[in-house]
């Protein structure tokens, strides 16, 4: 069975899949990849099932080799990908020769994904291969680890696509929570007209947001009985700052929640750099359902968006050294010579 041998592994590198469903009643949140759209993109590039596990790199670095020729795909937050020193295009599938040194570095933040043909076939726990760091299920990957790969039934590589924009912040859409009505109209209006940024305190459990005049505190907030939390819920914590719960969040909570970010907008939150502006916009439940269904059909259509990889001028480091157009003239040579 082909294996991946990890040589250099930065912090925050884990195996991830769709997470574990069905354990909410036991206090275990679903977990799974922070950017599920990137998982769908990788699966499309390799023509395989999105449930197969991949490696998630949270703003970190990774060097590895494979023991047999292997198809790979790289998606999510852009990194510098190199195979034996030569640069590979991001958001594309590639053939990795056995023994070649594959490096991922120069992260821009956010979550990057490395997918393998046949998927990562590492140790599973409670029905999934994804590490759930908050619950202590499986662990971050370390140098020296060997990961088994599943059997690859595909053979195409050299494909790319144009990813859905999600690295520049913008408006995240919300639905109301059972506690939204506890906030005054004025507070809700202020919430949707405020520009937020991501705080340094963010991980797979949740992301704290900051703004210039953040105080959405609720006096009633301290007396709410704990109830189920879902990823995307925005808690207003004791200091009045919003905290968006993510894949590895706790399963119940008693802080008031002002809204829930739509699942299809969560990739835009987790992939937003700290420098970009984020804001929130309430939509009706009907709009939200329509948006989710649209997103699901776009994910299903990803294989149709693939195109052969041709070298993108953006990825050519020494563009100016290329002679792009030959035989350029001023257009008046003939006139000059004949005059």
């Amino acid at each position, binding site marked *: 069975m082909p294996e991946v041998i990890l040589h250099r592994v930065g912090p925050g590198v884990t195996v991830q899949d769709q997470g574990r469903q069905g354990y909410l009643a036991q206090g275990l949140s679903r977990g799974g990849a922070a950017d599920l759209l990137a998982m769908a993109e990788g699966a499309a590039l390799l023509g395989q099932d999105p449930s197969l596990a991949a490696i998630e790199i949270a703003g970190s670095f990774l060097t590895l080799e494979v023991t047999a020729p292997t198809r790979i795909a790289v998606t999510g937050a852009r990194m510098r990908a190199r195979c034996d020193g030569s640069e590979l295009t991001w958001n594309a599938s590639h053939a990795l020769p056995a023994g070649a040194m594959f490096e991922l570095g120069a992260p821009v933040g956010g979550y990057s994904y490395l997918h393998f043909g046949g998927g990562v076939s590492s140790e599973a726990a409670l029905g999934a291969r994804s590490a759930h760091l908050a619950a202590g299920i499986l662990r971050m990957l370390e140098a020296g680890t060997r990961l088994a790969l599943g059997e690859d039934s595909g053979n195409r590589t050299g494909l790319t696509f144009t990813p859905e924009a999600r690295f520049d912040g913008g408006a995240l859409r919300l*639905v109301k929570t059972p506690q939204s009505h506890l906030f005054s109209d004025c507070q809700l*209006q202020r919430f949707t007209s405020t520009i937020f940024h991501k705080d340094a305190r963010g991980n797979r459990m949740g992301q704290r947001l900051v703004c210039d005049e953040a105080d959405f505190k609720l006096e009633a907030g301290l007396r709410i009985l704990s109830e189920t939390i879902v990823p995307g819920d925005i808690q207003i914590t004791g200091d009045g700052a919003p905290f968006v719960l993510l894949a590895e969040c706790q399963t119940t909570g008693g802080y008031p929640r002002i809204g829930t970010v739509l699942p299809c907008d969560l990739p835009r939150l987790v992939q937003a750099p700290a420098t970009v502006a984020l804001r929130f916009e309430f939509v009706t439940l009907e709009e939200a359902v329509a948006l*989710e269904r649209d997103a699901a059909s776009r994910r299903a259509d990803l294989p149709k968006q693939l195109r052969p990889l041709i070298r993108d001028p953006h990825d050519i480091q020494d563009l100016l050294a290329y002679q792009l157009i030959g035989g350029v003239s001023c257009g008046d040579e003939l006139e000059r010579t004949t005059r």
Partner: protein
Amino acid sequence: MSSFRQRFFMKRQNAGFCCPEISHKAAMNQHLKPQTPQFPAITTLGVDGFLVSFGAKLTEPANRAALAFRAAIESADPTGLKETAPSLTSVFVRFDLARTDHATLQTTLNTLLTQRDWYDAPVPEGRRRWYVPAAFGGENGPQLGAAAELAGLAPETAIAAICAAPLRVQTIGFAPGQPYLGALPPEWDIPRQTDLSPRVPEGALVVAIRQVVLFSVSTPTGWRHVGQTALRLFRPEQDTPFLLRPGDEVLFQRVSDAELEQIRSNDPDGGAKSEGQR
């Protein structure tokens, strides 16, 4: 009304609670003002979930209603159901938007709600009684004195009260396998601390608001740390990763610090013994 204000106002329409008897469509189109909900209440949670609530305050009937209603949805298994989870007085129901919709599932939930008086439901079947050794005070419960004082009890009386009667697992939540046990007598209605204790160890026995929580992971908390068990409530590597189930009873048995250490080093189950109940 300015156009922004108008747009904002219209977007508020799906806010708040809808009573079970109001159809989903009607609830969506009505202008619902924030209001005190009638229980049981069905609200949406997220884009693909419902929360069925049996009370805003924790009571024994509301807790039993939530546990029993959750079991009823699981056995009804409506099309598109993905997952259910009870919390103290409510049940979360998540479904697959590709296989069903809010209106259909809400009808199912309404029908189930009218089938019986859920507040009158018995506690779940297959529950067990656990005998759990616990040490109190000192390093194993540095806030015993403070908690006892808030409850108006001497530390020894407080320990005796916690060990006096079996406590029910009212829900499992927050962290994997973490039980909320209750109810302690009324004098234990003590608040959580506003500041967090830096870190309590796994197996810590903490108290607030007439409840005991046993921590399944080491974590900062606002609950007061009064005792310590050697329980591992979440064991991801085992066939039964979660020790306790909602409805189970836990009776604490006081041991000395030395006895707890001995149990910890000799017994992977932390000395917990269970017996089946009807």
